[in-house]
């Protein structure tokens, strides 16, 4: 059992970083992670009405003072 445990143990740093990512975003915009997912989804729906986006090239990033909508287009 001990052998498998050490092999499967994921580093606690990855857990910490994932938790922080969710925490900071919801702290910054003062809403629940759930509401945030909904915001992202609705932004995606709205934008896709006018611009050709796919879930792969669309991303919403939240910093302390800004909400960035990122659309990665073709590099020319």
């Amino acid at each position: 059992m001990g052998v498998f445990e050490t092999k499967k143990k994921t580093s606690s740093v990855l857990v910490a970083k994932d938790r922080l990512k969710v925490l900071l975003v919801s702290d910054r915009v003062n809403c629940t992670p759930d509401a945030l997912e909904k915001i992202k989804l609705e932004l995606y729906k709205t934008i896709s009405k006018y611009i050709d986006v796919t879930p792969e090239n669309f991303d919403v990033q939240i910093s302390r003072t800004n909400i960035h909508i990122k659309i990665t287009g073709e590099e020319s």
Partner: protein
Amino acid sequence: MGEVIVITSGKGGVGKTTTTANIGAGLARLNKKVVVIDTDLGLRNLDVVMGLENRIVYNLVDVIEGNCRMKQALIKDKRYETLYLLPSAQTRDKTAISPGQMKKLTEELAEEYDYVLLDCPAGIEQGFQNAIAGATRAIVVTTPEVSAIRDADRIIGLLEKNQIKKLDLIINRIRMDMVKRGDMMSVEDVSEILAINLLGVLPDDEQVVVGTNQGEPVIELDSLAGKAYYNICQRIEGNDVPFLNLDTNGGVFKKLTRIFKNH
């Protein structure tokens, strides 16, 4: 005109007071005129860390209320000629002073000193508002833990909102052995998340406890943390100093501390 710097963190117990005391000592060692102010009303600590607790006559609230002149309240450090402490009041609470009064007081001190360092209380209440009122620059102290980083992020947001533009980060109590194992966030992880200028990194060093026990700055003890604090002071002064290699591998550093312990 000197610079007014607030040392803050949001979360308690991450090393604000120790950092204030050591940056104060380090800047004084660089021949700067420095005054450190304990703004934690009711929970006086900076005097103890600096070993000056027996010399307090007047305090910050006395100065603000006009019970004494500034000169009477300032305590000269034991070691450094150009370092002074303005202690906090132990029997008053944060409502005894206002942000406006703090701003006036720090402006007055900045005329005479090169650096005015404010040791901020934990939290984001009035004590925090008082401490940041006169500051033009902030040093945010954090440790590589989820709770401390979360609080640091909020504090950074509040500092930005309060028009403090120059923000620096100190990451305290890094343990390289744990970082290597994947059980502690690295310097890169933390500074990437908080995204402000990295001013310094401090190892989790036993000598810090030794210094605090004795009321001596760790900067005077030959230790990795002491060197790191001294480098931070040089960077505050605008010198480009490379970051220390904290990965001591249990080799050279352990040997060094053993040698110093024997002295």
